[in-house]
Every structure is written in structure tokens, then in C-alpha cells.
């Protein structure tokens, strides 16, 4: 019994220590971000690595998700003779939920895991220690640009996901299933609200981008400097990001659309 309590206590302490380290780490990154202003190239390189290289998976997934939404939505709506509303269904599902959430999950798998592995390997091969000895703070030089790039890229990727998804739904609904072209767009235009729907979706994707990138860079920086340590950290990045995104999605949805 006491052993069990001891283990629980140790685990709890470990969790809080990590949380503390993670927050200190975040404050130090944020404090270093202004130095990036004078070195935009560092940010651009990372935007390419984190954002542009994630485009393919985001676009392809967005297209398929939109097509499935078109198909499923049509099958349900047609029973009520409401298939003209397909555009609204597709657009609302994407903008409010699937765009930010699925894009964030893909982002964690594609860009987050890469960030963790890269930073973890730099640590394991003493590159971060070497930088410190050259009086360069790795938090400013290596982590900061990657964090900011993820934070900027994620909302853009979510927006692209939603936009492509709408076209996927249009392609299936209007192109294949014969929903009226004008009704598809005009209903969407009438029913999707800029503030209520689009902005809330954007807020979600900003929050997810922040959290997923924070988890990814912290896991890399905190990883034990061994092959096994880095591989575990990479796994943790994907798992923790996914859980954080889904959990936060519920909280945000309740806050935004709760009443």
C-alpha cells in the first residue's frame, strides 16, 4: 500500500516538475522571440520546413474529408428533401470542427514529430551544448524560430484544409450527385457566419497550433540524449498533441457554442 502511494507520489511529482519545466521553457522562448525580428531568414526557413512541407498531406486529406462529408451529408439530407443545404453542412462541419481539429492532428503527426526528432537529435549529438559554449542560446537560435513557425503555420494550414474540403464537398455534391450549384453556394453564404463560425474556427486553430508546437519543441528539448530517448519523445509528441487538441477542442467548443 505504501509502495503504491510512493509510486503515485513520485509520478505526480514528476508530472508537475515536467509541467514546470515546460512553462519556464515557454517563457524563455517567448522572451527570446524579439531577437528574431532582426533575423527573419531563420523564421522563413522554418516556415518552409514546418508549413510548406506539410501542405501536401493537408491538401490531400482536406479534399478527401470534404468529399466524404459531401457524400454522407447528401445521403442524410436527401431523405428530408433538404439536399440544397449540403453546402451549409459541409462548410460548417469543416470551419467549426474538422478543419482545425483534423489539421492539428495531421500537423502534430507530420511537423510536430519532425520538430521533436530534429531537436532531440541536435541535443543527443551535442549540437545544442556546442551552441551554448559558443555563447549562442539554443532557445533563441533553434527553438524560437521553430516555435513561431508552427504557431503561424498551423492556422493557415487549417484554413487551407477547410477551403480544400469545401471544394471536395462541392465536387461530390454538385458534380457527382446533382445538387444545384447556385443553392450550394448561396445557402452556404447565407448560413455561415463570419464571427460565429469562421472566427471561432480560427481561434481554435491558433490555440491548437500553439499547444501542438509547444509540445513538440519541448519534448525534443527535454528528451534524454539517446536514440531511445529521442524515439520515445517523438511518440509522446504525437500522443500528447492529439490528446491536448481533442481535449481543448471540447473545452473551446463548449465555451463558444455552449449556450
Amino acid at each position, binding site marked *: 500500500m505504501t509502495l503504491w502511494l510512493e509510486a503515485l507520489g513520485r509520478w505526480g511529482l514528476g508530472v508537475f516538475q515536467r509541467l514546470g519545466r515546460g512553462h519556464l521553457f515557454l517563457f524563455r522562448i517567448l522572451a527570446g522571440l524579439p531577437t528574431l525580428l532582426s533575423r527573419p531568414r531563420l523564421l522563413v526557413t522554418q516556415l518552409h520546413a514546418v508549413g510548406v512541407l506539410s501542405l501536401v498531406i493537408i491538401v490531400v486529406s482536406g479534399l478527401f474529408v470534404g468529399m466524404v462529408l459531401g457524400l454522407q451529408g447528401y445521403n442524410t439530407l436527401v431523405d428530408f428533401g433538404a439536399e440544397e443545404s449540403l453546402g451549409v453542412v459541409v462548410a460548417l462541419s469543416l470551419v467549426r470542427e474538422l478543419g482545425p481539429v483534423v489539421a492539428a492532428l495531421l500537423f502534430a503527426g507530420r511537423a510536430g514529430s519532425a520538430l521533436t526528432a530534429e531537436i532531440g537529435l*541536435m541535443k543527443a*549529438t*551535442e*549540437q545544442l*551544448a*556546442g*551552441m*551554448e*559554449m*559558443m*555563447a*549562442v*542560446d539554443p532557445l533563441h*537560435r533553434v527553438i524560437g524560430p521553430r516555435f513561431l513557425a508552427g504557431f503561424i503555420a498551423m492556422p493557415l494550414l487549417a484554413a487551407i484544409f477547410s477551403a480544400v474540403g469545401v471544394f471536395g464537398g462541392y465536387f461530390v455534391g454538385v458534380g457527382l450527385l446533382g445538387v444545384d450549384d447556385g443553392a450550394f453556394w448561396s445557402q452556404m453564404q447565407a448560413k455561415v457566419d463570419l464571427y460565429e463560425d469562421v472566427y471561432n474556427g480560427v481561434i481554435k486553430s491558433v490555440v491548437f497550433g500553439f499547444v501542438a508546437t509547444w509540445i513538440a519543441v519541448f519534448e525534443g528539448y527535454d528528451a534524454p540524449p539517446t536514440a531511445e530517448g529521442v524515439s520515445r519523445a517523438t511518440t509522446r509528441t504525437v500522443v500528447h498533441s492529439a490528446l491536448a487538441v481533442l481535449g481543448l477542442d471540447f473545452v473551446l467548443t463548449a465555451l463558444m457554442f455552449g449556450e
Partner: protein
Amino acid sequence: MPQDPADDALIRVEGVHFARAGRPIFSGLDLTIRRGRVVAIMGPSGTGKTTLLRLIGGQLRPDAGRIVVDGEEVARLGRSALFKLRERMGVLFQSGALLTDLNVFDNVAFPLREHSALSEVMIRDLVLMKLEAVGLRGARGLMPSELSGGMARRVALARAIALDPMLVLYDEPFTGQDPISMGVLVRLIRRLNDAMGLTSVIVSHDVQETAAIADDIYVIVGGRVIESGSAAALTASESPWVRQFMQGEPDGPVPFHYPAPDIDADLLGEGEA
């Protein structure tokens, strides 16, 4: 901190104790590195030479004792003061620690770009000069993954001296070098030291080569300095520890083995029970 002008010690290590994972590595280490000298630190593998360089560079803190570099106690410096001090220190890591996403040229240019406001033209000239000194000007476009171990170490050396520091710490600069580049590097370290007025600390197992250029030698065994002096004095030393080390004899007081139980007992599995 007031500094005695007559004090020509750049680094003072005073009574340093340091343990790792419960195992003491230093127990009362004292040594002094004087300005403008080439100082060699020798000792068997695993005695803590790399650890000593990390203590001097402020990456580790001693459990007891002080390390003073250029009048400042390293362990007491805040982050920015420590970084200021490190800007005046060049370090050649045992592993090289080159940045794998930058090519040779950019690796050597890295400290210059971070810490100086020089134009790209100036940086280019400086980098090419440093690479020329280590014989790798022609390899400037290669990535670290395309270098041999010895080449990577020479690039790391060029990077360590890129900022013309006051102090250079070399961790095993000669490992993996063929006799020709070894000779070149040995002379390069001496020449850099004298021409630029540096202080150099060399950690090396290559006793003969290092002894040839070192002004002072410290031999560390078992967590403390067991002998120090000029190369000639050490070669003539009567101490069996020093004799064994300088001559590379297998038999002597310096243990070849990491502390372990008796081998017969270990093989029979008695140690586990």
C-alpha cells in the same frame, strides 16, 4: 572584481570536488593555467578531462571549490555574464559537435555571424583563412555528414578559433589525424597561441606530440593532479604514475580498468548474487 595586475593566471581551479551519479570524479583538484601558455592536461581515459573542460566552460558546476576564469568565478556568473565570458572562449568538442544542417563554411562562419557585425565579405575572408589553416579550404561546401572523423575535428577546430578568443580549450584535437595532419595541427596550435597571444588548454592522449608543444603539463589520475611541470621535467620524473603514463607502459600504478569486481568472481556470476 578587483584583479591583481601581477596575477598572470587565466584559470584557477581551487579545491574542486565533483561527483557524477554518486561517483566522485574530482576530489580536491587544484591547477593554475597561466596566460599565454600552452597547457596540456593528461590522464587516463575516464579520469574526467572532458568533465574538467565543461566545468571551466560553466556547463557543469563544481560541488565544492571554485573555478575562476579571467578573474570571474564561473559558477557564480549569471546567464548573460557567462555568455559574455564564453564569447572569449573557443571550445573544440571531443565529438566535434558541428551543426549538421550547415555546411563546413557556414559552421565556421556561425560564431562570426552570431557575435560580430562583420560584413559577409569580411566573414568570407576570415572563414577561408581559418579553413586554410586547417587545410580544408577546398572542403568548404561539404556537409558535416560528408566529412571523415578527422576532417570534422579540423573543421571544429577552425570554428573554435573563428572569433580569435583569448582562451581555447581543445578536447582531443589530434584524435583520428594521420601523422601529417597531426604534425600540422600541433604546430598550428602552438603558432596560433604565440601569434595571437592566446592561452591554450589541450586535453590529449597523444603524449609525445602534446608534450612537444606544451609549456606546462598536468597529469590527473584518480581525481587529483598527481604531477605537474614542464614537459622535460615530467619526462624525467621519477613518479611511477607519470613514468607509466608518459611511456605508455601497460604495467604500473595507473589502472587500465574501470573499477570492477574481481574478474573470476564476475565470470562465475558471484557478483550479482
